[in-house]
């Protein structure tokens, strides 16, 4: 079937089987290498994307469900102005996800900040609970996101 949707701000027109998992479609046909198809069960979080404004795991979505959707991945977020807030927050709290899960942690952080620019620890830890990689101490990761939210708020108010 023919699918069209917005990917990282650009219109995409692609042909695929409707039963293809969205993670495979994005990774294999659209070169979104930040996604790691792994568990295919919505457990590990390494295929996290922002789908119609919400954080979802793309391995749970069949390709046909992406028709007319708006999708953002790590590749789109790093090009956005808000990425600097995330980078700064992680660095200031010594929160350095490994190369394998960095992309998913950035996507998760971006989705949290889009919904709430002042998230509390409980909210952040609940979202992070849906990821497997334990490269980074959960406490540091949470602090990194809180600090990123701080910088995002300051950016919103025009302060650097």
């Amino acid at each position, binding site marked *: 079937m023919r699918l069209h949707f917005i990917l990282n701000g650009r219109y995409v027109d692609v042909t695929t089987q*409707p*039963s293809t998992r969205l993670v495979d479609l994005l990774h294999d046909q659209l070169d979104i290498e930040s996604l790691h198809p792994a568990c295919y069960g919505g457990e590990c979080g390494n295929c996290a994307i922002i789908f119609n404004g919400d954080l979802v795991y793309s391995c749970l979505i069949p390709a046909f469900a992406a028709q007319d959707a708006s999708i953002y991945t790590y590749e789109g977020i790093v090009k956005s102005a808000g990425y600097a807030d995330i980078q700064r927050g992680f660095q200031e709290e010594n929160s350095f996800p490994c190369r394998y899960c960095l992309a998913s942690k950035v996507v998760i952080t971006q989705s949290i900040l889009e919904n709430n620019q002042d998230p509390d620890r409980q909210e952040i830890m609940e979202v992070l609970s849906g990821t497997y990689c334990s490269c980074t101490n959960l406490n540091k990761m949470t602090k990194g996101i809180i600090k990123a939210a701080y910088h995002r708020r300051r950016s919103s108010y025009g302060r650097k």
Partner: protein
Amino acid sequence: MAESKIFYPSSLGELLRIYGDYPQASLWAGGTAIAREQGGRHRFTLPEIIIHLSQVTELQRISRTERYFELGAGVPINKILKVGKHVLPKVFTHALHHIGHPAVRNLAGLGGNLCHAPRRLNTFGPLTILDAKVELRRAGKSRWLPVARLFNRTGELQLAEGEILSRVRIPFESWNMQFFQKIGDPFLKPKTSLTFSAISDVRKAEITDFRIAFSFIGKSMLRDRELETLISGKRVPLSEKVRSEARELFRASLMELPGEVTLFQKQRALRLLQWYLSALHDPQRD
């Protein structure tokens, strides 16, 4: 294998027309239950005909009156929590909170959780004891049904051909004690998992209303009306005599459950009930 035929209706009217023409079609909203059941496979195994519901605006609505809250069947769980967290009954919001993690709740919808035929999932117990109702619609007709009657005794979904669940209506009632507990995972460990939902109203140390429901493996659900009648009208804290009588009544009900419910689940249910009965108190006096 032939490619699935997929429809993308943008309104309820269009959806009902298509569903009337293709009553054998599968309705697909978040698809999270199917995704879980097919986890680990490279590709999905899709039904022949699919009607994708995400663009049907009427199924995404949330509204409120003085007497009840109405939720469209397609509203994602996380959206319900965002909008209704401080207004909806806690037994229901706690049940919603235990549906997967946030990334799953952004996809999963209330209708799918209620209508999942192989298992009674989180929301069924709370909505049953809250006397919630569901609107069932097909082309030219609609009807309201109590959630408790959504499935018959053998666990068959009571939707007529071409009928869909469009809205869930939850009445506003006052309950000063609400509790929801989910143990285990009904997909991964069906023989040990269960959910327990309880609501009570205690006024001046008297239990004016008391409702509980357990859901177990598969289609098994237990709501013991005799037990509810026994406890209603009693004073808190419950005496050992009342609690003992309640235990025996409940034990007898557990024994009547179908064989698929394991002894382990029955023991767990009994323990949960014992705990809840001993925890009943007058919140206004605390």
